[in-house]
């Protein structure tokens, strides 16, 4: 199988968000960047599919700043074969602009399968995968927790409110991956060494601004200072009184 995986460089989930001086973006000072956690499931799935088949290639594609080369190297260290960085100064807020750039790159590859994380944990957009699929005219299933292939067809399960949808689709296809699909491997020392010599193409791209203009990035409203009601089970009557009479939630 020829498989492409779209990944993104994002701030680690333990990041404390500080707003930059422009009032519109994250202050990246001291921030640790990682492979978007949902994309790790995509990379892992791609590696497993390639290795089961005994042949094929896993190509990792990222759109991001030059520093995203490190993010791609991490995926190469996990076992991907080569990487492509679509280099931009800034990732636009309009996901369709990102999707168009990725689709233009992916169109050339004649991939059997394209995998993306279901969303990035920074912008929470959850749009790029299905948009790329539409632009490439391939079937797409999002937020997949189980995936099987047989005879040129795929079966995928996705979680919906209060249930699981079981879907069938023909290949080639684009799948977005959710937690639960697999357990992503850690790069081995050997993998990290090997990654240094794997091909990584950096292609500068010019993106239009798109139709989403960022006006402001602000901290969420602070929560009212809480209080300790008491210690041990003795505090339960007071807690319930507060929930009923003060908070009015019971």
């Amino acid at each position, binding site marked *: 199988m020829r498989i492409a995986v779209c990944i993104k460089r994002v701030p680690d989930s333990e990041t404390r968000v500080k707003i930059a001086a422009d009032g519109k973006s994250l202050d990246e000072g001291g921030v640790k960047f990682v492979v978007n956690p949902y994309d790790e499931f995509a990379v892992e799935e791609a590696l497993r599919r390639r290795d089961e088949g005994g042949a094929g290639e896993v190509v990792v594609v990222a759109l991001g700043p030059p520093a995203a080369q490190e993010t791609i190297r991490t995926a190469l260290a996990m076992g991907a074969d080569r990487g492509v960085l679509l280099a931009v100064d800034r990732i636009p807020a309009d996901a369709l602009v990102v999707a168009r750039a990725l689709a233009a790159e992916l169109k050339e590859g004649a991939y059997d399968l394209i995998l993306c994380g279901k969303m990035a944990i920074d912008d929470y957009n959850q749009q790029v995968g299905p948009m790329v699929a539409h632009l490439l005219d391939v079937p797409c299933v999002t937020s997949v927790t189980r995936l099987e292939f047989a005879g040129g067809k795929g*079966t995928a399960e996705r979680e919906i409110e209060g249930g699981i949808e079981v879907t069938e689709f023909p290949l080639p296809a684009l799948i977005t991956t959710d937690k639960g699909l697999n357990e992503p491997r850690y790069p081995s020392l050997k993998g990290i060494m090997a990654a240094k010599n794997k091909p990584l193409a950096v292609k500068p791209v010019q993106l239009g601004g798109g139709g989403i203009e960022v006006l402001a990035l602000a901290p969420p409203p602070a929560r*009212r200072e809480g209080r300790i009601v008491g210690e041990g089970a003795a505090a339960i009557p007071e807690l319930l009184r507060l929930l009923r009479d003060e908070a009015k939630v019971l």
Partner: protein
Amino acid sequence: MSAVLAVLEQRDGVLRQVSHEVVTGARRLADRDSGAVEALLVAAGAVRGAEELGRFGADTVVTATGMGLGHYAPEGYAAAVAERVRVRRPDVVVFAATAMGRDLAPRVAAQLGVPLAADVTEVGVDGGAIVATRPVYAGKALLKVRVMARPALLSLRPNVFTPVERPRAGARETVAAAGPPGGGRVVVREVKAAAAGALDVAEAPIVVSGGRGLKAPANFGLLEDLARAFGSGAAVGASRAVVDAGWRPHADQVGQTGKTVSPTLYVAVGISGAIQHLAGMRTAKVIVAINRDRDAPIFKIADYGIVGDLFEIVPRLTVEVRKLRG
């Protein structure tokens, strides 16, 4: 906004409750310009509950029907919605940011070649353009954006736009859905229902969540008992640590790499409060924390805290809640 299209949801031919929130959000935008709201359902046939939509502010309720559209069919639904947008030329199209809406709205946006503001918690109009606020970094920050396109596409976060009754005609109409035969290449073969009565943590008005303090998977039984005592609207959630340890299913995880929840009441039991967890539940209306460590970060965000042994406190709390609810 003089014309707003509200894209609604049905399952098994029954309207989903979240649809009332979508119509409410759409009505609010339309009211600024004495505009009209068209509610759109894609389905195999008539949808039970469509008759209520006038009450929440739908001027018209259109059901687009076709073969293969009984279950959610991504390509068929996207084509049906995009076609309706081309016919009606609304200024705004509003979706719900549910499992279906999160899948459908980007497809419609790509078909129409316009941007989408997803998972919106606040929306207004400024200088004729939609201005929307949406949580990013799992709610650690709020991003305010202007949508510079017609139509402007939005998906609304569930549990945020409280349904308001604003009676309108709600005139019903059925049209044949445009789109690929049989609903497209992706076919939903089956919907496996979760265990009877189980409520999704993202939708439940009350969430009782547990972390490593529970010590063993079997002890989540204590939280299930407490959730049951709160009634049918309560679900059990979990921290990332216990999901990664395999104690609980990933679908129950609350936090930056799990679900972002906004219940009326969130009870955190044996959860210390890692920043990625706090991000996922900080918009709960009321937060209660039970933890043995007085210095745990969870107490900084909790409205009410009890310090102590959860194995002593939770069973007693369950008994008292049961009594209270009679």
